[in-house]
């Protein structure tokens, strides 16, 4: 079932080609240098930026891996970087580097969706551990998004009637009730249901119910 031609999901698939990287953002040159060296020695592919602005220019929805960013920076702060990345559809987990005692900003960072935060100075074991988890989280989210994208693509192939049947199946209605609701015969419902299940590549009714939950995210066919 290739669906890479589908416009809404093409970026998701291109993204699968990018290798995961650690996007390191810190205004302190020595920290960038030291951490880049350390990360490369620990087998990470990393790229460093001196400011949030620079990082935002390089990041795209297809970027994979995670962001390791200082919280306090002149210009775009770590928090602003996170907000702007999110609004641009960049789903990378962000690990914040904070100064000790920055309780208020740290809390704001976590509430804003930061993956984790590390207090400076950081020791390498903890850093490596958190980065590994962040990258794994990104991969997991990425695969899930691909899967969701596939399912949405399948949903888009349903006709209006098939969608209606799916929606009512999702609500737990029996064939007879569906027929009554739509003003058609139960036999016709059977036909629509079979076609719908086939298009959605569903082998059980449970699969179909699960798919129906995505209906809200999928616009009805024109």
């Amino acid at each position, binding site marked *: 079932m290739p669906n890479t031609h589908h416009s809404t999901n093409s970026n998701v698939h291109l993204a699968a080609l990018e290798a995961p990287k650690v996007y390191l953002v810190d205004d*302190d040159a*020595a*920290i960038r*240098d*030291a*951490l880049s*060296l*350390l990360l490369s*020695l*620990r087998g990470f592919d990393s790229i460093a930026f001196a400011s949030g602005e620079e990082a935002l220019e390089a990041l795209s929805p297809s970027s994979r891996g995670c962001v390791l960013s200082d919280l306090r920076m*002149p210009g775009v702060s770590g928090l602003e970087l996170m907000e702007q990345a999110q609004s641009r559809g960049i789903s990378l987990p962000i690990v914040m*580097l904070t*100064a*000790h*005692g920055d309780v*208020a900003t740290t809390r704001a960072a976590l509430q804003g969706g930061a993956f984790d935060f590390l207090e*400076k*100075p*950081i*020791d*390498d074991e903890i850093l490596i551990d958190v980065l590994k988890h962040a990258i794994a989280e990104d991969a997991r989210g990425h695969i899930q998004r691909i899967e969701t994208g596939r399912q949405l693509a399948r949903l888009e192939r349903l006709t209006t009637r098939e969608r209606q049947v799916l929606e009512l199946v999702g609500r737990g209605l029996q064939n007879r009730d569906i027929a009554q609701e739509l003003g058609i015969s139960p036999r016709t419902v059977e036909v629509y249901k079979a076609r719908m299940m086939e298009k959605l590549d569903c082998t059980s009714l449970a699969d179909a119910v699960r798919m129906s939950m995505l209906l809200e995210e999928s616009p009805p066919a024109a």
Partner: protein
Amino acid sequence: MSLIDVMTTHDVVTCAIILTVGMGLLFLYRERKNAVKHAAVREAQQTALLAAAPDAVLRIEPSGQVILLNPQAEKLLEQSGVMSYDLLIQRIPGLRFEGDSGRERLRAYRTDGTQVPLDIAWSAYHPSADDGDSQPTVLMLARDISLREQIETRLRERDASLARAARVATAGELASALAHELNQPMTALIGYLRAARLIEQAEPRADTRLGATLGKAADEALRAADILRRLRDFYIGRGPKSENFDVRELIDGMLEEFSRRLTDKRITIHHEHATAVPLVYADRIYVEIVLSNLLNNAVEALHDREQPNIHVRTEIEPTRVVISVDDNGPGIAVEGAMIFKPFYTSKAEGMGLGLAMSRSLAESLGGSLRSASSLLGGARFELRLSIANPDTTAM
């Protein structure tokens, strides 16, 4: 024949004299009666006046007798009417009447052992002008100043605790700034050392001490960072003690105090409040430290200005109360964020921690401190504080 005809000239003269003397006597009698009456009125007035006076009033006669002239005096000295000079001195040690008049602060000791602080004024006089050589009479007034002393003590204590809190906050800011500034190179240092160890491990040398030494060096750097961390925690540990309060009262009280102490009396301080300012949720001491910092900065900026002005205002935003301090000094010469950096100062003797600390304090309260250009031509600072609860509005 008329009476005149039968009287001799001598008789007439005698008669006239008698008449004149009689009338004179009558006149004198009436005068005397009036005088007595006036004296009585005057005395009544005097008694009423003495009773109404806030001070204890007493008269010390040349004989050494002390006459307590009003109930206040009787109450203060726990005697009625009259007492001896010796007892008076015993009750108010240090009391002396030298010269024509005097004023001093003394304490009265009451029979129950308590003390009453007194503001005493006295004046000596001679009851009659031709009596200049004799002992004078002394009129003395004593006012109970317990209340004033209490207020003064309270103000002194408040000042001391404010100064202490400000000192702690300054030290905290210093520790925090140091920790922050040193954390950066420390982070890089630890990163380099760990990297060096990894490089060493990739190609082990015959001398194994290098790897171990690099490990120890990194551990020491971590230990140094930990010391900074604890130093910072020690000072920041207190944390704000927030409560709901009316910030207008705090500002009014502070400005009254501040104006009273202002050495540069040319400076005028205006202040106005928005109507119905909601209560804020903050630590009073923190707010006072921040505001007194802003006010002191404004005063320093105004030292060579003509018509120096400071405006303090409260305004309301949906979730915040804004307290602004404006001055017509020279304004802020550098970019806004710069002045909040630790160790930045425009003053010859400043440490550059006042604004950094003020901002930290404001942020620890969930508020903010920002600078701007003032419409008055100088600097403007806006302190934002969280509103306690939108429902509770101080009327």
